[in-house]
């Protein structure tokens, strides 16, 4: 079998491209390292010298605020120099190829590329073509993967629920267009979560989703029963071609998380959302801002998780 391009010859993490195929030990190494970085982010001086002298290039070919910002903060807290590239006004619009862009940045002595791209697989293409000392982190590629989001979701779940091996996790909404859902499901399965459910209308579930090892529900109330963790996904209007949905109102009626639907989950269930939220579409404000919500802690943990990933790959 061909070696995963994200692992080096010693089986260490060289690039982070996808949670799929990552061994359990590496997932745990990232989560444990992130735990130590949470300590750093709680200090007055929220900086460590690990990546001093390294250059981190944020290559965002698709708009993002939260992910790009948290990567930038994470890199700065590791003492790296961060360069943000606004691709919309860069040479790509003049016709330069993806690999030419990367080769030019490499000539400027890049160490880490943080890549977001609308095409699935773009970070893989870059990872296969960079120099040995250069590292690639996938910050979301098409519908394929968003591994650091998946990792911060796993970190959040472990933070509140400790042990994956007794959990029921429900992922709700637009699974079809969600790279977050895919990354999270792979991680949950690898870490031994006994029950992962996906809840959504047939039109927003990928065909053959059961093969990921999940239980499928079309009735949200049925699917939420006894859940420890409820992960709401954003309805991705910008990725939808054609009418997959009758209307946002109807979606909210059937698949929006409201307090009365949440009451079917465990009393101590946590509610997560990768953001940005569509209030009143997939989640009601009273739940988003309610006592079960850990949506803002997810953002904070995201910085520590990205610090962990960057410092692990850059050291390998």
């Amino acid at each position, binding site marked *: 079998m061909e070696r995963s391009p994200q692992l080096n010859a010693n089986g260490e993490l060289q690039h982070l491209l996808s949670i799929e195929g990552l061994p359990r030990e590496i997932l745990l*190494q990232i989560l*444990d*390292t992130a735990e130590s970085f949470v*300590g*750093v982010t709680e*200090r*007055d001086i929220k900086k*460590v*010298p690990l990546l001093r002298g390294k250059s981190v290039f944020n290559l965002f070919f698709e708009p993002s605020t939260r992910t790009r910002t948290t990567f930038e903060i994470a890199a700065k807290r590791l003492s790296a120099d961060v360069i943000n590239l606004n691709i919309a006004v860069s040479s790509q619009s003049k016709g330069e190829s993806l690999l030419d862009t990367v080769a030019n940045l490499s000539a400027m002595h890049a160490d880490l590329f943080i890549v977001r791209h609308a095409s699935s697989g773009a970070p893989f293409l870059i990872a296969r073509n960079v120099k040995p000392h250069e590292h690639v982190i996938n910050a979301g590629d098409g519908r394929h993967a968003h591994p650091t989001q998946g990792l911060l979701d796993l970190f959040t779940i472990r933070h509140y629920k400790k042990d994956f091996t007794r959990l029921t996790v429900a992922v709700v909404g637009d699974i079809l267009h969600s790279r977050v859902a895919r990354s999270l499901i792979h991680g949950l399965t690898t870490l031994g979560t006994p029950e992962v459910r996906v809840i959504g209308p047939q039109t927003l579930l990928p065909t053959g989703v059961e093969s990921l090892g999940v239980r499928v529900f079309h009735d949200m109330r049925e699917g939420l029963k006894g859940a420890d963790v409820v992960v709401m996904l954003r309805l991705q209007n910008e990725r939808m071609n054609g009418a997959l949905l009758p209307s946002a109102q109807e979606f909210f009626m059937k698949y929006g998380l409201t307090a009365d639907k949440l009451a079917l989950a465990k009393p101590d269930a946590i509610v997560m959302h990768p953001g940005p939220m569509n209030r009143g579409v997939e989640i009601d404000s009273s739940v988003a801002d309610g006592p079960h919500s850990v949506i803002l802690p997810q953002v904070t943990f995201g910085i520590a998780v990205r610090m962990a990933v960057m410092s*692990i790959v850059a050291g390998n």
Partner: protein
Amino acid sequence: MVSELPDAEALLPKLAAELRTHVTPNAAMIGLYTGGAWLAQRLHPMLGLKEPLGLMDIAFYRDDYHKEGLKHDPKRTKIPFDVEGRDLLLVDDVLYTGRTVRAAMNELFDYGRPRSISLVILADRGGRQLPICAQYCGAVVQVPEGMRLRLKRAADGILKLELERGA
């Protein structure tokens, strides 16, 4: 060869007695993972310090990161008191090159500006590569080339110095 190593348990009360004559009311203790943390967990109650024990993992401050990468499973540094103006007792098991102590001091200053830092160690094996020395030292130990001196903790909590292969 192993029989020549000093008995860690016997060194503990001696080290504590020496420290006791010097600790100020303002003193606090920090142990370095992993061996130094074990040692500090034993010394701390023997000194009756006011502040709870701090524990530090210097993984994010190591000077060999660019060569070695990040080691697996770094522990979370927990310093449950204000470092500012404090007389700190920094505790480690074995003093060798001095690089760990340098990393620890770098990390400490990201928490505040202590009034002083004293180094407390169980065993000094020489071989310093930096101008660092211990103020409190349990024993000086000769370590043969190619061997490593490490503190081990048994299931019953007993501490023991051991030699193993590897620099």
